């Protein structure tokens, strides 16, 4: 069936089978390989994308269901070519990743958390990433990365969503 998706601000018209998950559509039809296929049944969180700014599992949604709602993948969080978002920077600096498989999802979850709560407690951060499995880091550096990103984003001289 023919569907229209808005991903990272770009509009796409695609022909997909209804059974195509949003995850497979992003990876195979739009070549956005940053959405990772892990368990493909909603357990690992590696496929997380932002659906209207909210973190959801793209493997638990069929592509036609995503029509009409803006989607952001890890490819869409950078401010410009060759740059990193403050969250991505923080993950690099605190060694918040090792193999990298869970990383795009962790970063998107952090973006969703910080957009909603600029001043999260450690518990808020742990709760936010509790649906995302990481088998390398032991999570400590991921929590540290998100706390560092939050601190920097609070200090950044830019209008908040409310003031815009």
């Amino acid at each position, binding site marked *: 069936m023919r569907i229209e998706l808005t991903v990272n601000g770009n509009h796409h018209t695609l022909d997909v089978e209804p059974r195509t998950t949003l995850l497979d559509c992003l990876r195979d039809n739009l070549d956005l390989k940053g959405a990772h296929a892990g368990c493909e*049944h909603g357990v690992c969180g590696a496929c*997380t994308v932002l659906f209207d700014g909210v*973190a959801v599992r793209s493997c638990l949604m069929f592509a*036609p269901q995503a029509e009409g709602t803006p989607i952001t993948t890890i490819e869409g969080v950078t401010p410009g070519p060759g740059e990193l978002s403050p969250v991505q920077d923080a993950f690099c600096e605190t060694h918040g990743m090792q193999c990298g498989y869970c990383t795009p999802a962790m970063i998107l979850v952090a973006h969703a958390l910080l957009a909603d709560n600029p001043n999260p407690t450690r518990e808020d951060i742990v709760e936010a990433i509790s649906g995302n499995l990481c088998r390398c880091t032991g999570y400590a550096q991921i929590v540290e990365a998100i706390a560092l990103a939050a601190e920097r984003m609070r200090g950044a001289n830019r209008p908040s969503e409310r003031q815009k």
Partner: protein
Amino acid sequence: MKAAPFEYSRVTDVDEACAMLSDDENARVIAGGQTLVPMMAMRLARPSRLIDINHIAALSYIRADGDAVSIGATTRQCVIERDVLVKNKLLLLARAVSFVGHTATRARGTIGGSLANADPAAELSLVAVTLDARLSYRVGGRTETIAARDFDIGAMTTSLPHGAILTAVQFPVWSGKVGVGFHEVNARRSDFAFASAAAQIELTDDGKCKRIAIGVGAATDHPIRLESAERQLKGTAVDATKVKDAVVGALADIEPMADLHASADYRRRVAASLAARAVADARDHALGKKAHAH
């Protein structure tokens, strides 16, 4: 981990959805899809058609409704979690919803989807049964209602007739000195519970139990009420020994589920401990003492 082929229909009207559902006995309704999609990925479910009810605007709301609060079937769990009316009037629901899946699944999962899915461990079904919620569904152009405790009849099985779609759930609001408690035990946070317990209590001015509801989930194939314990505790000061005896007695005749993760004896024992803790929390909460952290 790829679903079998199916047809997809997005509908904006509930009667249109009911008609489609009646026309094809292998069609399934999809709301949040947080259970259905993994079931389809594992090919445990192979619907011929998915009827997507996410865009029926009339099914998504939370509103005061006389002495009750009504919640539309496709209202997302994350919306319930943050809703001020729910926090003020339905604290038991507010407390329990944070145990449902994790943030990313609550962002899509709906209250009606969870109730209609009828997982024995579903926190929302347990709250609905504990609070004597009434469920509304649409079938053949008319609206019917059913008590939550008559809705779940077994694991993943409800009494919803063929061609019917759940539209709303109405929770009665208790007033007065009301307190709540909710506990569950699982292998890891957000995973399916092995046993769960919910309690809501109303105390008189001198601290006696005026009204009490105690529910247990995940232990049996659908959530149950501990009615004999409720009767025994009414009018008492709800002291710990009496609570323990009452809930152990009420759980003596249940038939707990057993699997690789938790035996029947374990579930019964844990359910009794959690129910006693939930009641103690509810009493302390009603008395204004700090409830135990979950």
